[in-house]
């Protein structure tokens, strides 16, 4: 312990004595660590923001949507969740807090909306008052859809900020009428802007009551419905999933052995798919940058070997006045570790800066986020590199013969 402190002192003074050389030596580690941290911080920022997006779904909700297996699609069949399916689920499944069917005007695409001769395109959905909680919508002006809006098929609409701008509606658009699918709808609410996600605006939407949408879509024969169910508690999640599956298979007249033409998803399933990709990405990139750390380590070993040769005489002096093997070993080993840790620290700071810079310079990219574990790993890894590549030069120094070393010119 005691000689450890002494070794640190001597290591730091030696690193300072060769300032520029020490900097060049640590450059390999600096580059390795900073690129690790930069890459990890950007990926983690991404993953953090994706998780934030999914949090809106609520952890005790499950969603049901239609899914056409590839083989069916080739035959030209398109699967749908029908209003009748929704009713069957509503009647047949217990333990559901509320059920939020969402009816797209034109699934996956956008619909034309007009206001005073201006036309804009947005995603129009028909849903119920529970949609607000499920989609995490905050209201800026007016109100969201109510229960009675749906019951009485009111021709009302709640719009997003982007759509308001595109239609040149007033800042407070409550009470204005917009034209959609052959009907005039009264604007009763404006949602707080959510910003954009990967360059796609999240505020380019309009929500009308579910029943209103049904009547607007009257001529559309088979609407496809996306259903979200808020569960009372998560304990019977599997039971409920099973129940929904049985109901839908029966409704869709699927024979045993035929694939489901729908998908029941939990938010965990959605996020875990993305986290899988992200962790794969992290591992692959981590592997690449750890190679650069090894290269940095070899640089340190090289300079330490030079340093041992240069200081052969000093080592001889130290041995003559009583240094034991472990004193010399520790001194050089700690010098290598100090060098690589120095590189690690500079690398962490630099990498953090680079990550910030990268995510700031890409428009609409989520901010970088450096997790503590990445800092810990970078720090530990650079210390490890120091020990690994410092041990050989240090052993060489410790094993020098004092007489030979003293004679060295």
């Amino acid at each position, binding site marked *: 312990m005691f000689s450890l402190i002494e070794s640190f002192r001597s290591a730091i003074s030696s690193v300072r*004595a060769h300032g520029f050389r020490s900097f060049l030596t640590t450059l390999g580690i600096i580059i390795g660590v900073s690129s690790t941290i930069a890459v990890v911080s950007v990926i983690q920022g991404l993953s953090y923001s994706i998780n934030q997006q999914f949090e809106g779904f609520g952890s005790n909700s499950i969603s049901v949507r239609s899914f056409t297996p590839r083989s069916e699609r080739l035959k030209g069949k398109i699967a749908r969740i029908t209003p009748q399916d929704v009713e069957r689920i509503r009647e047949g499944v217990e333990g559901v807090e509320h059920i939020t069917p969402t009816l797209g005007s034109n699934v996956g695409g956008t619909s034309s909306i007009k206001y005073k001769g201006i036309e804009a395109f947005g995603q129009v959905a028909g849903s119920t008052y529970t949609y607000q909680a499920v989609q995490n919508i905050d209201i800026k002006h007016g109100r969201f859809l109510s229960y009675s809006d749906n019951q009485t098929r009111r021709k009302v609409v709640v719009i997003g900020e982007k759509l308001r701008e595109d239609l040149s509606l007033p800042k407070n658009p409550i009470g204005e009428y917009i034209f959609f699918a052959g009907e005039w709808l009264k604007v009763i609410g404006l949602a707080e802007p959510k910003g954009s996600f990967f360059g796609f605006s999240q505020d380019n939407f309009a929500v009308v009551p579910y029943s209103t949408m049904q009547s607007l879509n009257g001529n559309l024969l088979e609407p496809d419905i996306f259903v979200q169910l808020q569960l009372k508690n998560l304990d019977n999640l599997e039971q409920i999933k099973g129940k929904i599956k049985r109901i839908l298979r029966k409704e869709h007249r699927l024979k045993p052995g035929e694939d489901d033409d729908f998908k029941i998803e939990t938010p965990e399933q959605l996020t875990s798919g993305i986290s899988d990709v992200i962790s794969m990405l992290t591992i692959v990139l981590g592997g690449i940058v750890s190679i650069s750390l090894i290269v940095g380590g070899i640089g340190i070993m090289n300079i330490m070997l030079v340093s041992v040769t240069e200081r052969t005489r000093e080592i001889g002096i130290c041995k003559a*006045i009583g240094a034991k093997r472990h004193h010399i070993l520790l001194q050089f080993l700690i010098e290598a570790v100090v060098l690589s840790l120095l590189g690690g620290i500079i690398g962490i700071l630099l990498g953090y800066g680079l990550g910030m810079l990268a995510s700031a310079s890409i428009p609409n990219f989520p901010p970088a986020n450096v997790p503590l574990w990445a800092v810990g790993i970078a720090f530990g890894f650079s210390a490890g590199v120091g020990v690994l590549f410092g041990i050989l030069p240090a052993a060489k120094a410790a094993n020098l013969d004092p007489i030979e070393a003293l004679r060295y010119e």
Partner: protein
Amino acid sequence: MSLILLEDICKYYYMGDQQVKALSHINLTIKPNEYIAFIGSSGSGKSTMMNILGCLDKPTKGRYLLNEKNVSTLTQNELADIRNKEIGFIFQSFNLLPRASALNNVMLPLVYKGIPLNLRKNLAKEALEKVNLADRMDHIPSELSGGQRQRVAIARALVTQPSILLADEPTGNLDSQTTQDIMTLFDELHNEGQTIIMVTHEDDIAEHCHRVVRLSDGQIVEDYENERKLANV
């Protein structure tokens, strides 16, 4: 009681197939507070003698008792311990650490001895005061004159209060005036009770010593008391 007892010490080297007898069958006793010089021309074996006495090297054959302890069979680490505690080295080329201040140079042996920092500093300061360098302790060796560097080296040798001061041509790199100063310092140290062993090829340096051992071809050819010096005491 003898401080050093050499019994039938031999040291052989091999240069290729050729065996070189650096020392052969040396028997010698050195008592505490002796002031002894080993003299001889180059190749006489005096460097090997110094290495063995200083526990830097082990004899091929024979027994070396230091303070009645057999050191000829110790391991490298045990020898390092003996060098640290029992022996103070002074070299011809001073052998100070170039980047360390005088104070840090003097403190170094105490680091290996495991002395805590504060005590170490005090002991090193005392040693530097003893060689009249208290005002230069923050200077690094390149800022000091040759004589001052050798004083730092002497302070470093003294700081552990060793049994033996072992000086290898201590004035070889110094001018005549500084040589006189350094030799006076050795004389004073001897008067204070320090055992001093000197290795030199200069007769006027050996003049300072009370006992002179002349080596030639690895053997002791002369071992005499310095009458004039003894008469002065």
